[in-house]
């Protein structure tokens, strides 16, 4: 009986190993799962991969070499904004909770927590030693209005995060940069 199960166990183990290795290739990448529009709710998905980022970096190189350098450190940006409807509200809230629990207690660190009125924001980063940020994850539940998932993947110097925030006037990145500077 045990022998009969052996191939199944071996197959399961190889698949599991394979999937873990696949994740290990891009350490800062988090799979939020597939999102589909439901009901009349708003749906925004931005999925920018390295080919597009490299192209913009090449473009910025001439006039903004610093910005180009920052962009070269980024390998992927994914943003999902899903409007909450009666059909998906509980599923989205569970998904935010599930992402946060996956990131808690491991290599990821929660650097920003905001719970104000009906807004619930969690920002996580994954550091490689003290030298680089491998990933940033932002999860937001905005009352009964929308759920937001953001994942920035790359090899980014901590001090560059604040610079990206300042350059592009993106407040959450400035905040993360400030937190990282406090840590060092």
């Amino acid at each position, binding site marked *: 009986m045990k022998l009969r199960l052996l191939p199944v166990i071996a197959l399961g183990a190889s698949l599991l190993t394979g999937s873990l290795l696949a994740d290990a290739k891009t350490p800062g990448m988090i799979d939020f799962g597939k999102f589909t529009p439901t009901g009349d709710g*708003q749906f925004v998905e931005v999925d920018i991969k390295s*080919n*597009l980022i490299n192209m913009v970096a090449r473009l910025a190189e001439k006039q903004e070499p610093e910005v180009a350098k920052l962009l070269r450190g980024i390998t992927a940006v994914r943003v999902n904004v899903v409007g909450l409807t009666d059909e998906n509200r509980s599923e989205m809230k569970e998904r935010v909770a599930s992402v946060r629990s996956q990131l808690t207690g491991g290599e990821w660190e929660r650097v920003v927590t905001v719970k104000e009125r009906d807004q619930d924001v969690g920002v996580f980063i994954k550091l490689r030693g003290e030298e680089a940020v491998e990933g940033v994850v932002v999860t937001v539940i905005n009352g009964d209005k929308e759920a937001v998932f953001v994942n920035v993947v790359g090899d980014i110097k901590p001090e560059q995060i604040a610079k990206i925030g300042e350059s592009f006037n993106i407040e959450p990145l400035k905040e993360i940069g400030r937190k990282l500077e406090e840590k060092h």
Partner: protein
Amino acid sequence: MLAALCLLGVGLIGLVVYRTLTVGGDIRAARSAVLKDLNIKCASKVEVTAHPLLVHLVRFGLSFAPIEPEAQLAMKAFRGAEVGVYQLRSSLGASERRAVFSQIDQRLAGRGWERTVAVLDGDDLVMVFTPEKELDLDDVAAFVVVLNGHDLVLVSGRGDLEPIVELVTGKMGEHFSLPAFASLNRN
């Protein structure tokens, strides 16, 4: 001899007109995904192709015209495009818009496009696709889908991204005070 040249000329003009009024495989695939697969009725349609040669001729002509520098810049970037505009018989409901979204997504994914941006908000659906392969700065291709009420617009275009990004980012910088964007357009 003259008759043969006239015939050739007429033939070429006919070919240019035909090629201008027909669109390529990507537009046809997206159109069929909506109108055939989802059986959505279309009241009228306009399909136009601006071939690179035609674009060069227009650009050459416009270089003598007193037009705004922004328009000159946009023309400089533009290489060619295929456009399909379809007026649907009725405005689509939420479930139909979602079906349009997934049908076009699947169809274009099978043709080497990957979805970079998708926005579904109220009556509006906007999708932007870029090629899966490595992108060249001076020859960027994009496929854009816009569904707004009764109107479905499909655009497949190629161009030089640099002038367009300079134009857009410069304007964004002016409006939103983003130092990095504004500085791209400074010189």
